[in-house]
């Protein structure tokens, strides 16, 4: 496009330098100090903070986060792809309608949604009360276990997976599929050789969009895991809440490195650098 428009982006670059890049550098610096908040009164230079990485809780929390994020992302890919594919095949004219229906649940508060899910995962819940079901005294619900956390993540983040896949599918020229069918391959081969590879970009984008909030989130594991499952997000939150920004930054940087790795992965598939949609 006309070069004269490129000045429109300059203020944004400055904005990003101030609000995104500078804090990232600042956080990196915080890792090496020991102080309360950003109070410089009792500041001291230290490598003590790195001991935090050796704590069993940190290690297990990181592993937990990875495990749950990977599992949830995998499940989301499976469910999300099928849903997106069928929505695409059903030739709904109004893309905006699909988008809105998928995104609408998010207009309801995340905490309330998660607590509602936690409630119905218990043996005694609102439905047993509503329908006067007598629950056995030793009945056990799924809340508090690994399954509950995975279900919660999938239920919450699934739209982030469906949307990019659906967008990627929409962009495929229908002529390509027709050509493939005309040239004698059946529908399964067409899907495998034409549709799937072309929609892979959406899958990668969706995976990142699901994986990242799973990695850093703390509300879902806290509520659905009934506090038994510790994730790295919980630990980061604890430290920032207690004004220990130093260890908080350290752990946040660890996650940031994982995130940058995933951006690199995305860039490999997505040469334009357009994540999300």
């Amino acid at each position, binding site marked *: 496009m006309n070069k*004269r*428009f490129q*000045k*429109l982006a*300059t*203020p944004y670059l400055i904005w990003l330098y101030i609000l995104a890049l500078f804090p990232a550098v600042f956080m990196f610096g915080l890792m090496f100090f020991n102080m*309360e*908040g950003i*109070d410089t009164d009792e500041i001291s230079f230290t490598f003590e903070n790195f001991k*935090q990485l050796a*704590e*069993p*809780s*940190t290690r*297990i*929390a990181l592993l937990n986060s990875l495990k749950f994020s990977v599992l949830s992302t995998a499940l989301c890919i499976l469910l999300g792809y099928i849903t997106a594919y069928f929505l695409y095949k059903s030739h709904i004219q109004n893309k905006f309608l699909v988008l809105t229906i998928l995104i609408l649940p998010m207009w309801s508060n995340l905490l309330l949604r998660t*607590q509602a899910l*936690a409630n119905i995962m*218990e*043996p*005694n*819940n609102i439905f047993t009360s509503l329908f006067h079901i007598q*629950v056995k*005294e*030793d009945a056990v*619900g799924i809340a*508090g276990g690994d399954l509950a956390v995975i279900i919660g993540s999938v239920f919450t983040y699934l739209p982030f997976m469906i949307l990019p896949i659906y967008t990627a599918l929409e962009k495929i020229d229908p002529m390509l599929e027709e050509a493939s069918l005309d040239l004698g391959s059946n529908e399964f081969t067409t899907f495998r050789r034409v549709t799937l590879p072309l929609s892979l970009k959406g899958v990668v984008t969706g995976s990142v969009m699901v994986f990242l909030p799973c990695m850093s989130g703390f509300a879902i594991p*806290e*509520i659905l895991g*009934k*506090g*038994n499952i*510790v994730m790295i997000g919980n*630990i980061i939150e*604890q*430290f920032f*809440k*207690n*004004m*220990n920004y130093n*260890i908080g930054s350290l752990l946040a940087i660890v996650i940031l490195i994982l995130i940058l790795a995933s951006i690199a992965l995305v860039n490999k598939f997505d040469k334009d650098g357009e994540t999300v949609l």
Partner: protein
Amino acid sequence: MKWVWRHQLICSFILTIVVIFSLTSCSTRRQLLILNWGEYINDDLVTAFEKEYNCTVSISIAESNELFYAKIKSGTTAYDLVVPSDYMVEKMYNKGLLQPIDFTKLPDYHEDDLLPGVKAIIEQLELTFPEARAYLVPYLWGTFGLMYNKNKKGLEEVIVEKEGWDPYFNKELLPKGTKVGMYNVPRFAYATTMFYQEKSPNIVTDETLSASKKILTNGKFDQWGTDQLKKQIASGNLDLAFMYTGDFLDQLYIELQGGTPLDEISFDIYIPEATIAFMDNLVIPKKARHVDLAHEFINYMVQKEQAYLNASVVGYCTPYQSAYDMIVNYEIVDEKWIEYFNEDDYGKDWLKNWSYAMQTYYPLPKPTDEIQFRGTVLSNKNLTNQDLTRITNMVNNAKVA
């Protein structure tokens, strides 16, 4: 052409920012900024105060003492009043974040009107924080206890007979299949293990930390939670948990308002002899901008009727004897309160139930009692930030073990 473009965008950026700033600076009415716990004040009082003193009261909320501290320390807002608990008042004072309260501006505050429990808490606090009295005005107070499911066979007997902590940490002493919950604040979890070992919760050493970790690991808690615990016990999904007595009373009030008679309530609380006692206080930060208004507000809230009304919205106890007496002697209460606490909003027999709850769960010590008050106040005097980090890590390690 390029120049015009660039300027237009920059100009519009600047313009928006200027508009936003000017929007905020136009509040000329006196404004009182309060940082409080969620739903921890009777809104009717706030409205009445606004009318009487021609000001606006704006209340922000936070859900832990640590967040109160973070908010005051970071200075992003110059709050005029904050409601931290005892140990956090001490910490704020030590960091120079508070200003002394001018008691000459509080004609309605009478220190001798405080309940014995509150006096005991202040005395405990003064051991490490001698200036306490000059910096705080009690707001509400309470204890922690072990809430349990009465429908679980044999549980109530064990808890009462063994006096709380032993069965709480040893599942083999409890009836089979008892589900136990712990309050998900590392500092509180640590304190419970110290009570179990009959030690002070305010000491942190390597030995106590590792002992505490062992106890917490052996406890095999089914749930770590905060406000969820009481709901879980009320619905029968959990049988035993450590929590604020006020949390328990909140749940009790909800059940009573839902129409369950008092003798059919499925849960109760046992308050062990050694437990956490806490007191939330009105304090004025050093950076407060409306100090006079803050004093007026404090003076308003400590008046007998206001304290009475304020205590009605929460399960915690008023610190004032006069208000306490009003609650307890509900039969001789003024007609207007019976009208205020109408059946639609408060359920049947609210005044009677409220009186029962206060007398049962926040009892006045009898003159014959040997020790007048048994709770322990948490103190941060001897605890460094490193100690707090260690407690947090210890509890996390116990969870993942």
